[in-house]
């Protein structure tokens, strides 16, 4: 719980307790923090539209853009080597 100091109408300062937000997670290949994903609890994530929860590209929300580009490049090069 994190402490939030709130001033009451009576003039006293009291503590309100709020839960902390979860982290988004990291890319398994590069290790950098994943972008385009909100740091929000699962309860709030349930009611959000799908497009606001992850980037709209292949492996969005799973791999970073750098890692995805490498993967797609290697796939394409394998295609051209087959022929």
């Amino acid at each position: 719980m994190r402490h939030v100091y709130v001033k009451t109408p009576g003039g006293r300062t009291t503590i309100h307790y709020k839960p902390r937000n979860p982290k988004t997670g990291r890319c398994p290949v590069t290790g950098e923090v994943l972008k385009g994903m909100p740091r929000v609890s699962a309860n709030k994530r349930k009611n959000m539209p799908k497009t606001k929860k992850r980037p709209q590209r292949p492996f969005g929300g799973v791999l970073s853009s750098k890692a995805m580009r490498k993967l797609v490049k290697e796939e394409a090069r394998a295609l051209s080597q087959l022929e």
Partner: protein
Amino acid sequence: MQVWVWRSENMFEVGRICVKIAGRDARKKCVVVEEIDNKFVFIDGETRRRKCNIAHLEPLNITVEIPSGADNETVVKALKQEGIVCDMKKESKKQPQPRPKKEKIKREKVVKEKKVATEKKEAIKK
């Protein structure tokens, strides 16, 4: 260590089939329709019909015969022969209209005369 390779112009000629690497069209195949620059190229195919940076494309061994600046129909037909099936794009009838500008209304600030406070202060002083 990063090695930057300058792609020669001959690679991305008109008719070259490429795979898009970046963006939401990644992993989709496209054809170079027109050369704009030494950096930019106009593409069409499974991807959206738009200009693209050649750093975001990976060329394949295949080339296709199309005229420069070909429209979507010819591109779809040419790709079918190579085994790449993609839908024809519909022409958008809507044209972007300019937004009307909002006029800002300037309101004069009303300064209230503080009579009550001054009267109280004078009473306390006495």
